[in-house]
């Protein structure tokens, strides 16, 4: 089989490339250059590529496989970074990794893999893929603490057919690192990547300020009856349910609503849970139908039992017990370990 492996330069995707090569496949490593590393770390004259691309090339050389770097900067800026800023400006809490998977890894890269005549694309994501009666199924990883299925809900059924996820069956990251060491890969001890790759310092405000400065303009924090309780330094700093960064007059309260038009943060007593959650952009990994499922409303969440009702391109969730749902985050439906679909919370 001819397999394109999406290589980030980290230990996970490096091991995937190694495993695929060990199984005797013709492996082609591809690294997407998503942003100018030198600019991201603010160091003038730093290479545009950074250490990760260098590491991916070294791994490929070590494994004796072909490796290419694809310039995806423009696409990443538009589909991920700018959309990330837009989402905050719209009072939402975005998940850029989902957009990146959707548009770049399982979008552009997968298309390129097909163009190159590959039979499959493998990634280092911690999920499992099984052949089921309906075709390929996506399941949670064996290692629940590493499971990335929530981030991959937008993978279409056709994309899933083409993909392989060799790491989903591993019991722990330690096992993956051990294989990397055994293969003699220099990245075996490399630290895990950060949450949001294009925000190396961990403060996303700078990105939002660059693309959507109005989302960092000051505004009022008000109670639900309209009383002004204080000021805030930009709606992008808040998410639904947040208790931090509220004025003293709003102590013990949480954010209930974000109003981008008036730049107001509406606060109220704790308990912003709802029973009914509307979703847009729903992707089904089974035939779309009304069903009961366990629903994850953010990346690290327990399963909330619910009834899922398709509605056009979206869906409505009727949760058995009220829960916190932040607009912009994903709601992913599970049947046991299997992902049935998911959408973005409106």
């Amino acid at each position, binding site marked *: 089989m001819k397999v394109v492996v999406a290589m980030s330069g980290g230990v996970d995707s490096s091991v995937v490339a190694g495993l695929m090569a060990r199984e005797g496949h013709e492996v082609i490593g591809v690294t997407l250059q998503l942003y100018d590393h030198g600019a991201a770390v603010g160091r003038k004259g730093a290479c545009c590529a950074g250490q990760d691309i260098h590491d991916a090339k070294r791994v490929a050389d070590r494994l004796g496989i072909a490796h*290419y770097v694809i310039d995806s900067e423009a696409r990443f800026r538009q589909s991920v970074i700018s959309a990330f800023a837009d989402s905050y400006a719209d009072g939402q809490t975005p998940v850029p990794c989902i957009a990146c998977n959707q548009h770049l890894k399982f979008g552009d890269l997968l298309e390129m893999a097909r163009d190159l005549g590959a039979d499959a694309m493998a990634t280092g994501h911690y999920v499992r893929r099984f052949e089921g009666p309906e075709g390929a199924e996506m399941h949670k990883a064996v290692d629940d603490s590493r499971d990335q299925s929530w981030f991959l809900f937008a993978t279409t059924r056709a994309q899933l057919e083409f993909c392989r996820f060799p790491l989903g069956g591993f019991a722990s990251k330690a096992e993956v690192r051990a294989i990397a060491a055994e293969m003699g890969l220099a990245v075996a001890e490399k630290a895990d990547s950060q949450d949001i790759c294009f925000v190396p310092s961990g403060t996303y405000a700078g990105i939002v300020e660059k693309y959507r400065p109005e989302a960092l303009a000051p505004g009022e924090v008000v109670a639900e009856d309209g009383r002004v309780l204080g000021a805030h330094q930009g709606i992008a700093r808040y998410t639904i349910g947040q208790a931090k960064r509220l004025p003293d007059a709003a102590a013990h309260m949480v954010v209930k609503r974000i109003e981008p038009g008036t730049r107001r943060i509406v606060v109220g007593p704790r308990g912003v849970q709802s029973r009914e959650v509307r979703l847009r952009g729903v992707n089904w990994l089974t035939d779309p139908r009304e069903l009961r499922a366990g629903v994850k409303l953010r990346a690290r969440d327990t399963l909330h039992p619910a009834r899922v009702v398709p509605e056009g391109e979206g869906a409505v969730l009727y949760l058995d017990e009220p829960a916190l749902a932040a607009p912009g985050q994903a709601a992913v439906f599970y049947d046991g370990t299997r992902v049935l679909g998911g959408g973005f919370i409106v």
Partner: protein
Amino acid sequence: MLYLDANATEPVRPEARAAALAAMETLGNPSSTHAAGRAARKLLEEARDAVARACHARPADIVFTAGATEANALALHALGEGRTILTGATEHDSIRAAAPHAVPVPVRTDGTLDLDALAALLEMHPDPLVCLMAANNETGVLNDIEAAGRLCTAHGALLHVDAVQAVGRCNQNWLALGATSFALSGHKFGGTMGAGALITRPGQELRPLMRGGGQELGRRGGTPPLPAIAALAAALGAGYDGAKIAKYRDEMEAACVAAGGVVMGAGAPRLPNTLCVALPGRRADAQLIALDMAGIAVSAGAACSSGKVTASHVLAAMGAGELAGQAIRVSLPWNVAPDAMPEFSTAYAAMAKRGLRAGAASA
């Protein structure tokens, strides 16, 4: 593998290999006074004499460097001091990065320098240093150095010629054409990597970039890389069958055009070995990968050390628009074999056809 990336580096010539090996067998540092040092110095100066003969220069006016990037940087540093610097819009990064504030001289859509624009700029900027490439690394387009040299001489401007891609392929007497200095690089004509030269008109003084131990008559410090210099000199003396290579290139070009390719700089005089061809709607990096998988080595645009392919500033300066990100460079080596033509043409046509199918499927 079919190697068609000679503008990145030419295969080492057998003469150069032999000379480099012989130099490695020679004990001694050319700066030492003992017998071993004298033997090394003899090799170095014989190489210098050979380069001087091949380049119509005096041995004393040849400064060996680590390569063309250093030779270009030395020219800009030494000749550009206190002068406005004018550079062609399609110059190599070794010029662009060393002269970030240079005034660009535009090129025409065929990639050749706009000599009228150069004349106008020479009127505006008194006593400048003009930097022009003899042949473009991406398109192979040749500049009219003779005409540019006349303009520079008439305006009292200094002229530095980046002759890296031209030396060994279409040699000229650059100094006689009006160049104050010119740069060359050994591995671009079949020497080994690691040695280049800056060659100047007689008696031109050069303020060094690196003073070091005062080697190269105080113009370039550092122990000279003797094996690479010996290889450079030997490669300069090797023959080059430009007519034969141009014939192969023209056949490949015709095959690309038949498959839907658009030749960049087609109307201009070009190096015999270079073909820059765009496939409309197909990213250059995807073409490189497809050809590499078919066992054919070509390149595109300006490759960063990461290997990322970006849209070519050369083609952008020629007004190529979208095609600037869709062109590949095919550059035939001196030892290209006759069966390279059919092999390349078949792979290119297959790639172009696959693209049509993919385009039709997504439309």
